[in-house]
């Protein structure tokens, strides 16, 4: 099974001229992306998401690491004083270059996590998932009732023709299908935040391990 650590090291072997980003370079990149700290953070995440989509559609391994590689190179150029009129467009140019490099090397390295999706389409939950499902159910209960209903209506009512069902749902709610999707997206963001918080909470209450044995 591939791990994040191994993926990073493999990505490093795949990308040429890998540079370690310094704090100054990173600060220069953020300054080029926005005027306020909030805006800079948001733009950084947006650009990184776009890069991930870019590499994902090309089926390149580890699109997240390749996106980080592009951001590193971009930061280096900005810190070096290269004049850039549009940062996202410049990032796209670097991304195309990185993609070409990867294509050239792809036949040498084929790293695929074959184990991951073996269980993905299974209809029944695996044992490790049951804990996650229980946690998700707790989070669903914490959601405002209308959001929980929305998620149920959106995901559970879709049988043969999900598009039609959702059009009806949107019409019943008096909103457009796009607004419906946006609301579902936001509700899922709330769920993600809840899941993360629950995970942290569970980690905090776990008793410490002493010499490999959990203290009861």
């Amino acid at each position, binding site marked *: 099974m*591939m791990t*994040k650590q191994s*993926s990073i090291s493999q990505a490093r072997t795949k990308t040429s001229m890998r540079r370690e980003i310094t704090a100054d370079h990173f600060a220069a990149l953020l300054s080029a992306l926005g005027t306020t700290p909030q805006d800079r953070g948001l733009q950084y995440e*947006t650009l990184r*998401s*776009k890069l*991930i*989509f*870019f590499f*994902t*559609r*090309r*089926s*390149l*391994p*580890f*699109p*997240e690491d390749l996106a980080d590689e592009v951001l590193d190179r971009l930061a280096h150029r900005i810190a070096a004083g290269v004049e850039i009129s*549009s940062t*996202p*467009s410049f*990032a*796209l140019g670097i991304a*195309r270059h990185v993609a070409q490099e990867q294509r050239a090397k792809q036949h040498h390295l084929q*790293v*695929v*996590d*074959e184990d*991951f*999706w073996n269980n*993905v*389409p299974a209809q029944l*939950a695996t044992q490790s*998932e049951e804990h*996650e*499902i229980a946690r*998700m*159910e707790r989070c*669903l209960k914490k959601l405002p009732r209308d959001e929980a209903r929305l*998620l*149920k209506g959106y*995901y*559970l009512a*879709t049988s043969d023709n*999900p598009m039609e069902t959702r059009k009806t749902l949107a019409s019943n709610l008096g909103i457009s299908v796009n607004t419906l*999707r*946006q609301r*579902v*997206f936001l509700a*899922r963001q709330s*769920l*993600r935040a809840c*899941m993360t918080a629950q995970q942290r909470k569970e980690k905090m209450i776990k008793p410490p391990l002493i010499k490999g044995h959990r203290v009861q």
Partner: protein
Amino acid sequence: MTTDRQQLRDYLLGQLPEDTANELDARLFAEDDLLREFRYEQDALIEDFLSNRLIEKEAAFFREQIARSPSLQGKVASLRVLLLALDAQSTRVSHPDPSRYSQYLLVISPALAVMLCFVIFLYVHESHKNVGLNSQLLTGPHIHSPITHPIGGSSIAVAFLSANVSRGPSAPPEISVPATASVLELQVELHQEPHERDTWDAEVRRGSEIFWKASHIPVHRIGKEEFLPLFIDAVNLPPGAYVVRYAPTSAHGASQSRSFLIIKRR
């Protein structure tokens, strides 16, 4: 410029011609709105993948993408857990597990039966007392006919002194006690105000003589009403005028008093 969903999906599945895909790349980096559309479409794609709604070629390509991207793996796993959780909730609501349900019933049935019997007993008991109280109120303020309950060879007579019946100073309520009664249970209703004290001291005077006295008497509550139960020896209770005085045991509260007349009935 709008982009239809099929085009976005084809882009995500690597099925667009290269030049069209490159145009979309450029737009993706220029427009933030398009990123949002891609996110929505990727969610829909994951959902279709999990629901086996993709054709084999699409599913194979997407499987390959998932395998190559840890973040996509996270998104797939997250939606899968959500769908399973929603499904589990829905199943639980619409089809409660009958075996579990019957197990619960099996466990709680005896307890419910005992509770039901107890509630019926309380209801009958309190109804009986209320009938007594009502009948006394209906018979007028002057004659109180206590309810008598035989206990062993003798009997206990119950009488209520209501707090809400207005009485003039010259017209104390009369309590008619049967000659056969050995004990008079006098239920003195306390005024409708919050009583912080749960125990009270009371005395019954006949003129200046203390005829009966008790302390730390617990309050008897019936619904919202509170009564002070006084058990007075009825055999040696001569007819005449009496005053009952009562105050919280702590003696911090003001004492209250009520006059009544005892009439012996043959």
